[in-house]
């Protein structure tokens, strides 16, 4: 187990360096000029622009900039500055992250409960009517883009039924976050349901299930212990990766419902062409995502002895 953890941690290093470099290059080899954009249409004299550039380190060679960015990040926890407000990205994040986290956790809860329930219900009766209903439902959820679903819900629950306000007023209010969280969860929910279903249907036919029945175990034990313990391994893996991407991938949902999370600020920064802010925010999101996948891999090893002792 210890060796597995160390190996997995070592594998993270090149991925971390590569991923940050890739983000960096994507953001900085691009034609936009964030410093000029700060002054809008009025423009500014070249000396001021050069000065600001120098302060932000934007006049350095790219590779030097990347090195500064990487070392700043690793050594000082510095993810750059939000150009527009002059605040450090970490500062912006300390406001936004709890919001995204909360939204992601609510979405995760919905996904977990509904996804597993649907998956178990259909997996145990694969091929039957209720299985086909679940398959059709999840097919629809997978096909409808998240912003379409968002507007549909907004129109239905806010404009037609008046149950909620179209935009979230208080980004920390759990009850207000419920609708955006449902929208955010929809796609993953469908995947969880399908994965659970496939996994259960497959394991139902496994030889060890036959053994469990032959041992004279009661059905709830056969299903609850023997079937679930095996079937849920891939589902737990998916859920783990997904909580990372839920936190990292809420740009559309947060923007649509005016939830002031990381995604909201990211979208804001992209539209202002604030390269450093974008890089900082995306880097943090990617780090969250990578950390989540690391945790999941370790969790996976705990759950599946075949990996642990490999």
């Amino acid at each position, binding site marked *: 187990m210890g060796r597995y953890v160390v190996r997995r941690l070592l*594998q993270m290093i*090149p*991925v*971390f360096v*590569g*991923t940050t470099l*890739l*983000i960096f290059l*994507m*953001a900085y*080899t*691009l*034609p*936009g000029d964030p410093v000029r954009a700060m002054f809008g249409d009025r423009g500014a004299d070249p000396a001021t622009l050069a000065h600001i550039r120098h302060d932000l380190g934007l006049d350095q060679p790219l590779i030097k900039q990347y090195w500064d960015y990487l070392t700043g990040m690793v050594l000082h926890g510095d993810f750059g500055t939000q150009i527009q407000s002059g605040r450090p990205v970490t500062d912006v994040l300390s406001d936004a992250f709890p919001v995204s986290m909360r939204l992601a956790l609510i979405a995760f809860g919905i996904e977990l409960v509904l996804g597993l329930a649907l998956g178990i219900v259909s997996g145990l009766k*694969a*091929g*039957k009517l209720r299985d*086909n209903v679940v*398959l059709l439902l999840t*097919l*629809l959820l*997978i*096909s*409808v*883009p*998240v*912003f*379409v679903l968002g*507007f*549909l819900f*907004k*129109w239905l629950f806010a*404009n037609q039924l008046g149950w909620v306000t*179209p935009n979230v007023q208080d980004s920390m209010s759990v009850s207000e976050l419920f609708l955006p969280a449902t929208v955010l969860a929809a796609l993953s929910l469908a995947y969880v349901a399908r994965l659970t279903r*496939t996994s259960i*249907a*497959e394991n139902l*036919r496994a030889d060890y299930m036959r053994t469990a029945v032959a041992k004279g175990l009661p059905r709830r034990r056969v299903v609850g212990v023997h079937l679930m313990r095996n079937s849920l391994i891939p589902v737990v893996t998916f859920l783990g990766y997904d909580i990372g*991407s839920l936190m*990292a*991938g809420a*740009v*559309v949902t947060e*923007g*649509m419902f005016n939830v002031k999370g990381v995604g909201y600020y*990211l*979208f804001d920064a*992209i*539209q202002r*062409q604030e390269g450093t802010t*974008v890089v900082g925010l*995306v880097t943090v*999101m*990617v780090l969250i*995502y*990578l950390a989540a996948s690391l945790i999941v891999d370790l969790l996976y090893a705990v759950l599946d002895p075949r990996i642990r002792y490999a």
Partner: protein
Amino acid sequence: MPDTLTKDAPAPAVEAATPAPDKARSLWGHAWRDLRRNPYFIVSALLIVLLLVITAWPGLFTGASPRRADLANHYLGEPNWGHFFQTDWFGYDKQGRSIYARLIYGTRASVLVGISVTALVVFFGGLVGLVAGYFGGWVDAVLSRVIDIFLGIPFLLGAMVVMQAFTDRKWWMVSLALAFLGWTQIARVMRGSVITVKQADYVQAAKALGASTPRIMLRHILPNALAPVIVVATIALGTYITAEATLSYLGLGLSDPAVSWGLDISQGADNLRNAPHTLMAPAVMLSICVLAFIMLGEAVRNALDPKLR
């Protein structure tokens, strides 16, 4: 899918009695027999044919221009459900443009982006996967790390970062951005598939007979490793269409005067309360289009691999 488990239920007795037929041909043969009876397949295939025809000849479906605006007469005009295929079938948008015409002409952006991204990722991702899987060793180690790096960046997030670099955005730029971030999915599938096929007896036999490396790769491995790639690519095509619409919706994809469903949805969002049809029409069209490709992919997957049912 509608196919039941029961029909593949273990019939332990028959197994030994049926002789093993020719592998690759029977795989597709069986799949085709299955598909023809699958209503999901028939519906999705017909939809896709229709979408392709619309893409190629939008003029067949409407005489109206998607860009002709008549603010005076048609500001947010209501739909006329009875006026099939006419300019005012789904009403008019805020700028007085025919929503029906925009649906028809918007198909092209979605389908073009979907197909071109798929072609790009299948070619490049497939190539990387084939090379990594076939040669193994350090080649595989290096390529796999590169894949890991790309997978570390969420697809849409990465596409957003790339797209914000461009101001005058064309559909092929969107395609390139999506392909740049999306190829890893295919590469991974292809790699896994090649590694499996590589160990097959007929490949070992070809090697033993002294066939050249390119010949083995192209003649023996590629055709047999392709099935899972085709399935994943078909389903991914649907998600690329979603990605294009999402980018356009966010203002990072196509922009006026281009015609795109995502763009129309974003514009319709402003009038969600009083004129929901301006948003719902492109939203439904987009969803149907994505649904068609995902349904097709799933139908093919189920036909090729009954175990996944």
